Structure formats: C-alpha cells, structure tokens
C-alpha cells in the first residue's frame, strides 16, 4: 500500500514543469471505532479514507489543492487546480518544496500487523469490557458516558520534484472511558485511557479504574478561595501545557513576530530544572514518526536545556528564510492542509521524585487533575495564561479536599521560570507530548 501511495505521489511530483515545483502528499487511513453503552454496542464504525494534497510553487508563488479520492481524473484536476491557485499567491523568495538534506530517516518500527489481524468481535469485546470495568471500579460510579475502543492503520507518502520520496506507516489504538460518579446529589466526571500500537498494549483495567478514580475523588468538590499557591500538574495536564509551549518555539512564530521567545536565544527562559526536547524518533512516543510532513528525516531537537533556550523548530520554508537548516519539524493536519511548523513529540527530562514525594513538600497547593479552556484563555502571542481547573487541594504536604470551578492563571513566561520540580513519572499520552508531574510556584487560583 505505501508503495502504491508513493507511486501516486511521485507521478504527480513528476508533473513539475519549467519554473515550477510540485509536492504531493498522499495518505490512506483505515479505522475502526466501537462505542459501548448500557452493555450493548452503541455504534460501530468501520471505514477507510484516503486523499491527496498537491502543492505547487511557481516562481515563489504557492498554490494548494486537495481531494478526498485518488482516481486518476481527480488527481489530475487537483494538480491543475493547485497550479492555477499558485498564480494568485504573493512572490516569496523563500517559498519552495523540500529537497533531500542527506539525513537518513531512523528505522522506526511503528507498524504492528497484529492490529490489522485483530478481529472486530474482539474489539467489540474490549469496549464492552471497558464499560463493565469502569462501572464496577467503585460503587459511586453511576454511569459511563462513553466507553470506546478505536484504532487506525495509517500510511502516507510524500514526494517532491526536488527528489524527496518518503513513506511512513504506523498503527495505533486506544481505549477511552468517561465516567459519571454520583454521591449526595453531586455528580463528577473523570476520564481514563490506555494507548498502544496494537491491542496487546492496551489495559482495560488502567483505563477503567483511572476514569473511576478521577471522578470519585472529585465528589464533594467545592470552590477554593482566591490566592496564590503552588500547583502540581498531573502528567496529562503537563502534556497539554507543553503543547502550548511548543507553539511559541515555532520558527514561523519567531519569523513572523509572534513568538514570546523570539529574542531570547541562549538565554534562561525557564527554571534550571527544565529541559525540553522534541524527539519524534523516540519509538515510545505516541506521535513518533521517522519522517516529517515534507518527507525529511525527523531528529532529536533540544529546545530548552537546563532552562536555557537552545533552538526553535523549522520546516523547509522557515529554515530558508531564517538562514538555517530544517529541523524536520514540518507537520500537517492530513492531506487537506499545507505543511506548517510544529513539535512532533515533546518531553521534559524527568526528575527523581514521584508525585507523592513532590506533594509532601508543599504546604499550600493544588494538585491539578484537569484543565479546560486552553483554546479560550491562553494566548501564545501575549503569553496570557488562564484556564479552568479541578483537582485536590494540598495542605501540609498531603492531598486534601477536592476543588472545582476555579481558574489558575499566570503567564507562559512566568510558568516556565516558576517551575519548582519535574517528577519522575514520565509517560507518553495520546498527543504530541509526554506527561510528567510538574510543580509550579506562585500561580493565582481564582475562586471565591
């Protein structure tokens, strides 16, 4: 299959002509999703989808078109449309498609044939079992809003008229449960999941009991009082925060005057305990990939080392414009989009102590289990950071009463500098960042 996709991509890239370059990105995805509810299968989706995105760069002008079918006529029309669109772009001397840079992609093995061979009945059984385990984990769990098994087999190819020809294939699957817990008229919710490359990696027990624990431990939660305190972010929350930090380190944001850290290279932007790396070649990362969205090899990029800013992320265009080399950081949201710059797989270097040990050293704090409104209250340009939060209060070194309906606020700049400690509990999550416990001082909790 990957070879077929590459043939299509190379055929289209071969249509490049006098004075214009072509990039073709072709993807095919097969997915299954099973949702259980009330002891029955609520829905089962079995589907495959494919498509092509064609980028034409003509004398510095860029055009793009996509189509969700791969028949010959449509592919040709898509190319013609991209070519036509390129007439209307502005001239940009740095625009262009990727060229081979001599770096060989790591031989990552991200494909598991066990997934493709896993029978549908067994997928259904996993979803039903997940609902049972979640419901049975605690008598206060009164419902399971959703219990889901999902998997995907993804293959892609990218080729350019400058000689790039690359393929990737991977499998992935996850279990996700969302539970409802009730006690004395109070309802709380919690999620749990388990991810892997094939169903053998998954743990129904982990997903189900995490969902139950997260909901039940919030029962009876009340609003905290407004004050400054130390927050301890659960690994999942840290991973979401890292996603925002990654966006501020994009070479595109730097070049276009939208990065907080544009003028801070080789300066201390974080606490000395903070070392941040983007490494898609780590096979344990859920978003691991040997190639980036332009077909160049991914690599390990130290972004912040001991608090000092070391590098930004670049794709082909931004690297040319900045006069540096691509860091293999092109990303795209499928075949419908042009490549942009982004982090693939961020992680903090873990510390030495567990979450419990970190909590034990905090007098007044909040263990943050979940955050909301990252899209509405965080501005990666200004640095303003304000999100809804829920979790457990920390008093005298121990977790105490549950807290809900509060916000935690600071700025992205301050959060990095105010990091007190990174936990030892690094885990890869179904997103482009790893989770780890993270303690940050001097954050405003707003409540009553």
């Amino acid at each position: 299959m990957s070879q077929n996709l590459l043939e299509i991509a190379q055929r289209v890239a071969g249509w490049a002509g006098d004075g214009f370059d072509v990039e073709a990105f072709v993807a095919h995805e097969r997915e299954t999703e099973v949702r259980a509810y009330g002891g029955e299968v609520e829905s089962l989706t079995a589907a495959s989808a494919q498509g092509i995105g064609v980028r034409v760069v003509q004398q510095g002008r860029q055009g793009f078109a996509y189509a969700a079918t791969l028949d010959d006529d449509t592919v040709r029309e898509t190319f013609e449309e991209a070519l036509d669109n390129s007439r209307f772009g502005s001239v940009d001397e740095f625009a262009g498609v990727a060229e081979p840079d001599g770096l060989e992609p790591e031989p990552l093995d991200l494909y598991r044939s066990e997934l493709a061979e896993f029978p549908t009945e067994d997928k259904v059984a996993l979803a039903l079992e997940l609902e049972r385990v979640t419901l049975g984990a605690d008598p206060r769990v009164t419902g399971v809003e959703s219990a889901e098994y999902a998997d995907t087999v993804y293959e892609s190819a990218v080729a350019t008229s400058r000689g790039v020809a690359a393929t990737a294939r991977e499998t992935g699957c996850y279990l996700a449960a969302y539970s409802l817990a009730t006690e004395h008229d109070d309802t709380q919710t919690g999620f749990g999941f388990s991810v892997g490359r094939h169903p053998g990696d998954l743990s129904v027990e982990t997903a189900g009991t995490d969902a139950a624990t997260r909901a039940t431990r919030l029962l009876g939660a009340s609003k905290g009082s407004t004050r400054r305190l130390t927050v301890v972010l659960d690994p999942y929350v840290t991973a979401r925060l890292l996603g925002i930090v990654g966006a501020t380190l994009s070479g595109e944001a730097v070049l276009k005057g939208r990065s907080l850290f544009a003028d801070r290279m080789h300066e201390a932007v974080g606490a000395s305990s903070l070392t941040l790396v983007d490494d898609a070649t780590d096979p344990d990362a859920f978003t691991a990939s040997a190639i980036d969205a332009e077909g160049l090899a991914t690599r390990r990029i130290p972004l912040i080392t001991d608090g000092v800013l070391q590098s930004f992320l670049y794709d082909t265009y931004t690297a040319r414009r900045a006069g540096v080399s691509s860091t293999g950081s092109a990303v795209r949201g499928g075949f419908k989009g042009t490549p942009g710059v982004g982090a693939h797989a961020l992680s903090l270097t873990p510390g030495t102590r567990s979450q419990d040990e970190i909590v034990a050293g905090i007098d007044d704090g909040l263990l943050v289990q979940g955050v909301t409104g990252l899209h509405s209250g965080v501005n990666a340009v200004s640095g303003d950071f304000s999100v809804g939060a829920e979790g457990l209060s920390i008093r005298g070194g121990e977790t105490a009463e549950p807290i809900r309906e509060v916000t935690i606020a600071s700025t992205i700049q301050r959060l990095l500098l105010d990091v007190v400690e990174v936990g030892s509990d690094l885990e890869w999550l179904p997103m482009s960042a790893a989770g780890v416990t993270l303690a940050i001082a001097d954050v405003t909790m707003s409540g009553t």
Partner: protein
Amino acid sequence: MLEAEVVNRTLSAAMRTGADFAEVFAEDRRSSSAILDDGRVEEVVSGRDRGAGIRVVVGETTGFAHTADLSEAGLAAAAGAAAAAARQTGGARRVVEVSSLEVPRPLAVRVPPEDVPKSTKVALLTAADAAARSAGPAITQVSARYGDGRRRILVADSDGLFTSDDQVRTLFSVSCVASGDTGMQTGRESAGRTAGFELFDLYDVEEMARRAARRALTKLTARPAPSGEMPVVVGPGGGGVLFHEACGHGLEADLVAKSASAFAGRVGERVAAEMVTLVDDGTMAGEWGHYGIDDEGKPAARNVLISDGVLTDYMWDRLRARKEGRASSGNGRRQSYQHLPMVRMTNTYIENGDADPDDIVADTPHGVYVAQLGGGQVNTATGDFVFGMTEAYLIENGEITAPVREGNLIGNGPEVLTRIDALGNDFAMGSPGTCGKDGQGVPVGDGTPTLRVTALTVGGTAA
C-alpha cells in the same frame, strides 16, 4: 448527486439481513480559501470532498461505514459494511423504496462564491492588511483569511425519506499583533454567513481590520485581569457563547439521555431567571448556523428551549427522538459524511429584555465588562463551564474604565442562569463559531442583548 433507484437498492442492501433503520447520507463539498500573513498572500487553496456515509440501526446498535466511492458498487460495499457492523441477528428482508422527493426551498445565495474570480477574493485580503497596518506602527503583524464552501447533501432513509440541501457559507477573519513596551497583544475580528459573496455587502473588510487593530492596540495598555467572584456585564452579541456553554450543550438530548447533563429531568422546572427566554433556531436566514435540512433530512426549526425562565424542551436528533417516540427537532448534524450525526445546536440566542444597556453598566458599581468573547468549554454533567474574554474592561463606579488582559471566566451553568439580573434591549448576533463536540466541528451562531450576571469568577491574576 445520486439517482433514487440507486439509493433504493443501496438501502435495500443495507436492510437485507434485517435492520430497524437504514440511511444514506451523501455529500459533495467544494471549498476555497486564501490566506494572507506577514504581508504576503501565502496560499490559495481549493478542495473537493465527496462521499457517502451509511448508517444501519439494529436494536440499540448503530453500524456505520463511509466511502468516497459514489458508484453503486461503492455504495453497496459500504452498505454491507454498515450492516455487518450493526451485528444484526437475522430478521425479515425488507425492500426499501424512497419516493417523496421533497426538495426544500433552496437557500438564497445571491452571488455564488464559485463565480467570483480568485483575484477578487485575494484583493479582500490585501485591503484588510493595508487597513490594519494603517492603524499605526505598533501594529506589527497582520493575518487575514477568506474562505467559502458549498456543501450539497442528499439524505435518504428506509422510512422513505429522500431529500437534499445546498448550503453555501462564506467567512472572513483578520487578526493583528500589536507590540509595545509591555510585550505583544492580539486582536481579532470575523464575519461569516450562510450566504455567498454578498457577505461583503454587509461587512467592510477594511472596517473589520481597523476594529481588530484597535482591539490589539487597546490591550497594550491593559492591566492584569482581576481574580475572584464579581458582577460581569457581557456586551451585545458576546453573551451567546456564555449560553452556548452554560446550558446549550446541557440541553442536547443525547447527553441528557445518558444523565450527563445537569439539566436532565428538569423539563417544566424553573431553571433560569424569569426574564430569560432561550431559543435555538436553524431557520434564521443567512446566520452562520442556518440550513434548510439537518444532516438527517429534517427541516431546520425554531425551538424554544427556555421560556420565561422555565425549561420547555431539549434539542433532538432522530435516534434519540425515536427512542422517546417523538419527532426530531431538526438538530441532527454531522461534520461530514465520515461522521455519525448527533444532537447539535444551530443559532442559539437569548431574546431581548427591556433594559437600556447603558443603565445596566451604570447600575454596576464594580465588575468586569466583556466586549468580545473567545470561545468556551463545558462539562455538561457538572455544569461547570469556562469562556474566554478577548476584549474586556473594568467597571468602576458604574463606568467602563481600564482594559484588562485576556483570560477565562468560570461558572456553573445552572447557577449562572439564575444569577442573570439584567437583560438589555440591544439584541445582536455574535461572531460565527465552530462548535466542537466529540471530535466533530459544525458551524453555529449565537446572540444576546447586553446582560449582567451577578457573580462569575474572573480568572485573572490581580487581587
């Protein structure tokens, strides 16, 4: 898009091994967009997306498959996959015949975007860029986006429904960065309608750009937002997001049925201040959440959800309505043929009150005035929700004073509805939004007059 006979045979194939319900949803979507950033027209994009989703319901189980292959063979394969997915256990064969070719009134589009030259679309971007930059040297970056989409859908099902719709939407947005001694700030403005290029008869892109620039410049002098509970006045149009999150999602029948809503079992009860009447209305011509039929073939409708503070009904899609033995309210929507439909909002709004908006502010000794909101999120089971403020000011001694920086506000839906104590007479629709639920995004509109909530928690850092 598809012949009735092909649809008949596809539905019959879907029902072959026994099913309670089968449906074919076909979609042909063409879109175009252009993006300007950093002074350059970076890309002009065209897209074509076409396919069908087939749903088969057996008992409590829905089987679903989709295909980009609209040939009869492709549809038959998808129908077989959906039927197999529904895990049917035998049953009577049923031959389906769709007949009633009921075509709703086509949505009025005066200037189809596909007839507008690409160069004209691109010219809007450069005009917006120039206008924003003319606001002063502190405007250091501008990006602008034009987008249009035409979505033709066909829905046919085993109850004999066979209907179609042709939906055209056009959108324009502009974002600015202003830089000063205090760092960088952003400002954004957007306009979108279920309409064609005539959108720009109503909206002047240069004026939009100047507004976005002014928003960014104003925030350069903004102080940190306050923290703690206080009265919050939301300007006209802006409050729609608040209701969308505070109660809109909680009134979706699929969440209610799973007891995942703080409003479950409360129909007929007083849930909001008496002055509050909340409506979801997919028939509002031209509004961003408008359509002829929903994605299950049901005509859009005007549904009163809360009347004078009393909860009157939830929003329904076909599956949930069928279980309750009632009709869908026309709220069954899906992002594309690759997705299953679920209950979604359309244009959700609060009807006008009778207060003068100036009096509402003058009556507020201290608090926060939110002029523009920036999206939100809700946990429907607990009712806790957040929404962002992208343009906000302090209210001091009954007057709007200093601008404050961005942040979220947090509240609890059922509590906040009872804490509304003033509604203005200046109703306006807000900005076009994309509502996300379960990984699917659909266009929605919202609106409100100026309103006041007696206490909401403002998520800033200042004391």
